[in-house]
């Protein structure tokens, strides 16, 4: 089949394939890493613990869904609810009536902050006892009455409590004293207190709605039959889970971790793969171009274009699978590290394992091989199509200008990038951030296509000052002008590094900067009450307001809303504001643009929006906006105000009463306190600190309402920048080394003509600087074009470029260019010029 030429050339000169090998290896590593994360996202599961004895678990859909009809197809959009979605307690009755069901137990959990004698506990209704199986039962005493509780034996023993003892407990629904009526079996999930079911319903903060229903079958009923009956009985009112899927109900963090991993592996993986393909293809094109003489000779002595193409393709086939296979281990290491970091950050439950399967590896090998093959065929087109005579003549000289098709495509991609940037301008927060990489990609392709033209322009522009730099400088200028294509292949990866790292890192720094500025300017409270526990009950703000010397005390309940913008569902952080919203300006200056925050209290269905969110929704004061609250409940509140400082505080403000029953745990995270004029501040702080379970700080203690998604995506951005930037940096170095080594004849000629080593080194240094400066300039322009609209969408401000970020990036790029040019030049200069000249090509 093959004529063996490829095998011979790979075996004879493995050195010339090292560049390609490195590019492919790194590409495969990135693909394996992203693929493994994606696979983990798709398959991650946890064995149910609490629900192990309940074969069927029923719960509400933990996502907001909308359907869009596009053409004939119905497209479903989904967004996970920021808070726990709950189901109607009445469903329990419906399920209990089923013939297959022995017991359908409602399950609701609410956190109880640590009390004087008890640790932080989980509060539950007494009906939930028994979910864990026959052993999960009362071991002492009796069921709790209205003002009674049952404790688990471990907790009771540790706290030296016995039935009959009395203790104060705080729940989302309020604080009260309870008598211990009995003790129940210890729980795997930790300290637990069971309340009478009606009490639990009230204390949970969301009366009438429950987290889940655990269904246990009658003797001998198989799970499939049970599930089928349950499903029929429910209709579309809730979802039914069996097997390991029950684990996601038990641990809602698992499903958010799964969607996060899927997004990370899929979206970022997509971009990383594109970059990898891009780098691999340009490396192979360069390597093939460098061997033009060989192919010209082959053409002259009778190799058909087909044979040339096949030889190049075979070479790719020989190198690619090997390189990709070598990339698997580093890829797995990357995935492991990344996954570990996510777990450390709490984005992934600690007991979820990385799912390492053969599929990502296979995909990496296939993809790399395919990319190499395509690149080989494309690169072979020129040498194979050329007439043999042209080939011989062309071999030594620069290839002609880029073709028309290439130019037109390049211009199209540039236009596409600009359009995408304009679209991003109209988008909001997260979505705008997500478009950033797409915009960068468009411009990157442009650079790849128009590279030679760009390089020629840069050479013309920078040539004049170079010529002032003596013989080496003017030689460098001439080389740059005469070899635009070679220059372009060196510049492209530098642009890649700068654009990627710049965009991702500056986007993040802008968000952080704006968040800091907003909090600094926005929080005007004198004191901030925080807690180390699960949160502050609603009463804390009311109590604080009555402390002498306090003018205003407003509790903030952090939650989120889901909204639809541009046919897409997104979630945004929101605040439930307790107390009198009219007094909000005393503690929070949100820079209200239109409307008044005071109106927030007039009716329960009101909302104030940040300019970002109001822009995304296209809403103004007076409009009613369709939204979903934290648990997925659809609402249409009226907009009463639009304010500027959203980032770091919250993109929407709602009355606390409107959101309290739609959150996972209805506790305030902070209470903001403004002192009355002339109040004794330290004394005030001391008396506030006396409130149970609280800590008091000044306004610096306000913890920015970190948009969890943005924060995580910020960190992810840094990792992506590191991965893509590192990848691009290695390929830039790779390319530069390849181009320098290819110039051994030229260097020999220069040396023979009397150029000193110093002059050669200087010439190369000037060229490296030219590459670095051009690459940085183009990369920075791309980053700028991308960032201006995106940061306006995310942060409502211009990109914030911290010098401590930009400077190292620029210096690093220059050093990279100098290093990867300087080292091979030194190696070339170590050989005697006469030897160099006759050296084999």
């Amino acid at each position, binding site marked *: 089949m093959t004529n063996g030429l490829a095998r*011979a050339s790979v*075996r004879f000169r493995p050195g010339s394939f090292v560049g390609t090998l490195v590019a492919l290896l790194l590409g495969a590593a990135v693909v394996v890493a992203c693929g493994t994360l994606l696979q983990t996202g798709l398959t991650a599961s946890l064995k149910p613990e609490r629900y192990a004895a309940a074969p069927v678990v029923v719960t509400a859909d933990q996502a907001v869904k909308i359907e869009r009809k596009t053409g004939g197809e119905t497209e479903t959009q989904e967004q996970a609810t920021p808070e726990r979605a709950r189901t109607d307690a009445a469903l329990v009755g419906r399920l209990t009536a089923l013939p297959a069901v022995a017991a359908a137990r409602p399950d609701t959990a609410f956190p109880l902050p640590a009390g004087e004698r008890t640790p932080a506990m989980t509060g539950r209704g007494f009906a939930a006892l028994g979910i864990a199986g026959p052993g999960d039962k009362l071991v002492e005493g009796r069921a709790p009455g209205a003002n009674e509780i049952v404790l688990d034996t471990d907790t009771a023993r540790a706290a030296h409590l016995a039935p009959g003892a009395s203790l104060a407990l705080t729940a989302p629904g309020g604080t009260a004293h309870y008598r211990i009526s009995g003790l129940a079996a210890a729980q795997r999930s930790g300290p637990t207190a069971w309340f009478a079911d009606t009490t639990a319903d009230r204390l949970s903060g969301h009366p009438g709605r429950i987290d889940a229903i655990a269904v246990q079958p009658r003797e001998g009923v198989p799970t499939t039959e049970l599930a089928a009956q349950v499903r029929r009985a429910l209709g579309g009112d809730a979802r039914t889970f069996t097997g390991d899927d029950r684990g996601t109900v038990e641990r809602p963090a698992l499903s958010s971790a799964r969607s996060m991993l899927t997004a990370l592996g899929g979206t970022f993986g997509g971009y990383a793969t594109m970059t990898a393909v891009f780098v691999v293809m340009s490396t192979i094109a360069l390597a093939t171009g460098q061997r033009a003489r060989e192919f010209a000779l082959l053409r002259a*002595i*009778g*190799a058909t*274009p087909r044979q040339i193409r096949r030889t190049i393709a075979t070479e790719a086939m020989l190198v690619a699978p090997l390189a990709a296979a070598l990339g698997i281990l580093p890829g797995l290491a990357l995935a492991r590290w990344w996954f570990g970091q996510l777990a450390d950050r709490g984005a992934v439950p600690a007991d979820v394992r990385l799912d390492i399967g053969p599929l990502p590896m296979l995909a990496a090998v296939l993809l790399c091989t395919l990319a190499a093959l395509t690149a080989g065929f494309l690169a072979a087109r020129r040498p194979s199509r050329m007439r043999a005579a042209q080939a011989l003549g062309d071999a030594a000289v620069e290839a002609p200008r880029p073709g028309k098709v290439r130019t037109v495509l390049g211009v199209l991609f540039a236009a596409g990038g600009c359009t995408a940037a304009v679209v991003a301008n109209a988008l909001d927060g997260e979505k705008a951030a997500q478009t950033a990489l797409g915009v960068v990609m468009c411009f990157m392709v442009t650079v790849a296509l128009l590279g030679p033209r760009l390089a020629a322009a840069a050479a013309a522009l920078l040539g004049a000052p170079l010529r002032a730099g003596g013989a080496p400088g003017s030689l460098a200028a001439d080389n740059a002008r005469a070899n635009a294509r070679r220059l372009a292949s060196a510049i492209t990866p530098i642009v890649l590094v700068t654009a990627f790292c710049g965009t991702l890192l500056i986007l993040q720094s802008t968000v952080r900067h704006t968040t800091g500025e907003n909090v600094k300017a926005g929080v005007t409270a004198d004191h901030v009450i925080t807690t180390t526990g699960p949160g502050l009950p609603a009463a804390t703000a009311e109590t604080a307001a009555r402390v002498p010397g306090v003018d205003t005390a407003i509790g903030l309940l952090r939650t989120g809303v889901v909204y639809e913008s541009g046919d897409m569902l997104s979630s945004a952080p929101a605040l439930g504001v307790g107390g009198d919203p009219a007094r909000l300006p005393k503690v929070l200056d949100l820079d209200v643009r239109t409307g008044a925050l005071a109106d927030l209290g007039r009716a329960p269905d009101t909302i104030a929006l940040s300019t970002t969110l109001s822009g995304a929704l296209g809403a103004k004061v007076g409009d009613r906006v369709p939204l979903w609250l934290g648990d997925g409940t659809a609402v249409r509140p009226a907009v009463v105000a639009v304010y500027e400082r959203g980032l770091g505080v919250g993109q929407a403000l709602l009355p606390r009463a409107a959101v309290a029953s739609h959150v996972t745990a209805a506790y305030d995270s902070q209470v903001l306190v403004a002192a009355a004029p002339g109040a004794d501040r330290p004394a005030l702080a001391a008396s506030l600190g006396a409130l149970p379970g609280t800590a008091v700080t000044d306004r610096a203690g306000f913890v920015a309402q970190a948009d969890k998604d943005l924060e995580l995506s910020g960190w992810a951005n840094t990792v992506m920048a590191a991965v893509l930037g590192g990848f691009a940096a290695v390929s830039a170095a790779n390319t530069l080394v390849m181009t320098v080594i290819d110039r051994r004849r030229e260097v020999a000629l220069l040396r023979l003509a009397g150029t000193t080593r110093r002059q050669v080194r200087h010439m190369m240094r000037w060229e490296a600087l030219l590459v670095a400066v051009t690459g940085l300039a183009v990369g920075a322009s791309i980053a700028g074009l991308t960032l201006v609209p995106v940061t306006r969408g995310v942060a409502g401000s211009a990109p914030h470029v911290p010098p401590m970020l930009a400077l190292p990036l620029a210096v690093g790029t220059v050093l990279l260019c100098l290093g990867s040019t300087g080292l091979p030049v030194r190696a070339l200069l170590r050989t005697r010029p006469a030897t160099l000249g006759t050296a084999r*090509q």
Partner: protein
Amino acid sequence: MARHRDHRTDGPGTAPFTAAPFTAHPYGSAPRLGAPAAEPAIELRGVRRVYGSGAATVHALRGIDLALARGSFTAVMGPSGSGKSTFLQCAAGLDRPDEGQVRLGGEDITTLGEDRLTKLRRSRIGFVFQSFNLLPSLSVEQNVLLPQRLAGKRQDRARARELLTRVGLGEHASRRPGQLSGGQQQRVAIARALITHPDVVFADEPTGALDTTTAHEVLGLLRQAVDSLGATVVMVTHDPVAASFADRVLFLAGGAIADDLPYPTPQTVADRMIALTAHPVGAAA
């Protein structure tokens, strides 16, 4: 193996300076090995080649008529820009003339498609270039066998060995080109050019990168290929000494044949070259 170098003692040729078409046997008395007025190995009829257009038009060849007999050794000389390279490329099927015909062994190759032309080069034409004749990744023997390998034919290793022995490299068959000297590499190229029994071997400045002694060895080998193997060789050169190894020297000037010198010696060739440079040929104007 009749042809001997002592023909050169006959003195400078007296072939008329002419722009008229050459016939198959421009100097009738030249003895030809078993060539009974046969077809010429290669024949050019009114070959023209123009590069560029408008003001930048270059007439590289202005109508070449020529026939070269089998078993002949022809040198092509001329000042820079005289059209030597274009002549060689057109004659060898590396380039396509704009007008006229090139007939190789009686077959018109100007009408062939790129693929047919490639296959023709592979089997019926041998090449020796000034440098970079060999693929560095292949051994000497594999380089010699490359045309057969590309043709997918059985590789005649015995013949490769024989040719390598003839050029004095019998022991170096398994070496890589990088391990050989420049002269040795050229000799391998000659062996490769001969492996397929080509109609014509084209040599483009084959000694351009070699020192005098090595150059003589290589030229001697080309001479031998003609004398003892009956090959037909066309060599472009600028070196009068190299040209003197040929049976006949064609001088190109301004894209046309300006002179034709049979039985050349270094001196006669040099004299003609000087004359040509001093009095540019009117026909080319």
